[in-house]
């Protein structure tokens, strides 16, 4: 408070009072009498005028600059908005074209039933591909003679878990695999990789390590894509940290068996004139929609809709079929096989990239 009172009380420079006292108290000196004094006063006031004027001029000069900068920013925002709109429009156009081309191809009978069966996993397929062997770490008691139903969960971190396998399979789909089997189990749109006890189940059949994952695709290219994919790096991490061995090799010729027991009980194939919003998310490359389970598909491969770690969209198949005996909640469907003509599905990044 005293500071404020001080400021209020001493509005006048104390120098004036002191100078007046030194002069001897004649209090009629309103303006300086001498020529020198007058000149000093004039010069001082001129200085004041210069400072104030420069300040005013400067403030006026700064104003248009600020306005100009703001205008430029607004311009840039508008430009970016417009180009984003354009790109969005392009995405929509391309998506519509993809849909219509797909419908055309299906309607014109190009869609060979045999090819479709191969694509969705109902027929044996053969071709080049890769072989990925995953082995539990040494000394985890998982030789193959272990009872997969015994034990309490994955107590040992040296064992490959179901979610590791899910990650690997998803990585393979995203790397461009066209068909995948694990230990001779062909993955389909209805497949689930899950855990029960200490065992990893694929389509409700327990797997015995080592896990032999085979994927069809352009072998060397697929190997490269997978190794640089997040899943490949994850496998290297598993090897370093937990000693889970993984060997990947390109194969000239692989034959993947057909899946068994793929039956649609309540789902009906959608009619071709389905609305173009059939693939609402950009992340889902349109799969052969005539045979792929649509949103209402219900599957024999029972599965509980748990939070799926699968990074991309999957056909949401609500299970109304028979439940598997196990009560484990770890469930995930694998990807829809995307047997598009491009070969590389690159799920999750959108099919309709401008």
């Amino acid at each position, binding site marked *: 408070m005293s500071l*404020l009172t001080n*400021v*209020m009380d*001493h*509005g*006048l*420079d104390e*120098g*004036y*009072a002191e*100078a*007046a006292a030194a002069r001897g108290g004649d*209090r*009629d*000196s*309103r*303006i*300086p009498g001498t020529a020198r*004094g*007058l*000149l*000093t*006063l*004039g*010069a*001082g*006031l*001129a*200085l*004041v*005028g*210069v*400072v*104030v*004027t*420069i*300040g*005013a*001029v*400067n*403030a006026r000069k*700064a104003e248009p600059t600020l306005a100009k900068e703001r205008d430029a920013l607004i311009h840039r925002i508008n430009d970016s908005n417009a180009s984003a709109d354009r790109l969005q429009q392009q995405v929509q156009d391309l998506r519509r074209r993809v849909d219509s081309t797909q419908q055309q191809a299906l309607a014109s009978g190009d869609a060979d039933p045999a090819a479709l069966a191969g694509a969705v996993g109902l027929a044996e397929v053969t071709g080049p591909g890769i072989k990925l062997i995953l082995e539990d770490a040494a000394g985890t008691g998982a030789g193959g003679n272990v009872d997969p139903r015994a034990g309490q969960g994955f107590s040992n971190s040296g064992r490959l878990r179901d979610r590791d396998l899910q990650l690997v399979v998803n990585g393979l789909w995203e790397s461009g695999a066209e068909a995948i089997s694990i230990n001779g189990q062909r993955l389909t749109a209805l497949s689930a990789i899950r855990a029960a006890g200490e065992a990893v189940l694929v389509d409700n059949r327990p797997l015995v390590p080592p896990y032999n994952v085979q994927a069809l695709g352009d072998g060397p290219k697929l190997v490269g894509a997978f190794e640089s994919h997040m899943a490949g790096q994850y496998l290297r991490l598993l090897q370093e940290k937990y000693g889970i061995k993984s060997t990947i090799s390109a194969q000239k010729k692989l034959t993947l068996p057909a899946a068994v027991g793929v039956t649609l009980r309540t789902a009906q194939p959608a009619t071709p004139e389905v609305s173009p919003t059939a693939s609402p998310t950009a992340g889902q490359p349109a799969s052969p929609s005539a045979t792929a389970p649509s949103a209402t598909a219900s599957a024999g491969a029972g599965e509980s809709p748990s939070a799926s770690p699968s990074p991309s969209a999957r056909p949401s198949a609500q299970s109304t079929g028979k439940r598997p005996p196990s009560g484990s909640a770890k469930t995930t469907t694998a990807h829809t096989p995307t047997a598009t003509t491009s070969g590389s599905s690159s799920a999750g990044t959108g099919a309709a990239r401008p």
Partner: protein
Amino acid sequence: MIAVLGLVIGVVVGLFVQPEVPDAVVPYLPIAVVAALDAVFGGVRAMLDGIFNDKVFIVSFLSNVVVAALIVFLGDQLGVGSQLSTGVVVVLGIRIFSNAAAIRRHVFRA
């Protein structure tokens, strides 16, 4: 007479020369303007009080401007430039107000 002349000359010089203010000094210009106004109001009040002194006027004006700019400069270096310039403006503003009130009392006797 000479006071008015000096002011007019100053304004004219400022308008016509329009010196290019260096960018480094620009932030201190408003503070300098406020300090100059404070000196002017103090001088006018002293004149009306009958204790005006030209030397005190000049020195107080120059030192006000320099000290105010220095305080703000220091604040800028410490990262509290805007706060310190607010402080300077508040103090000088209070002084301008009280001097203006004293001038008003002299002129209107109220």
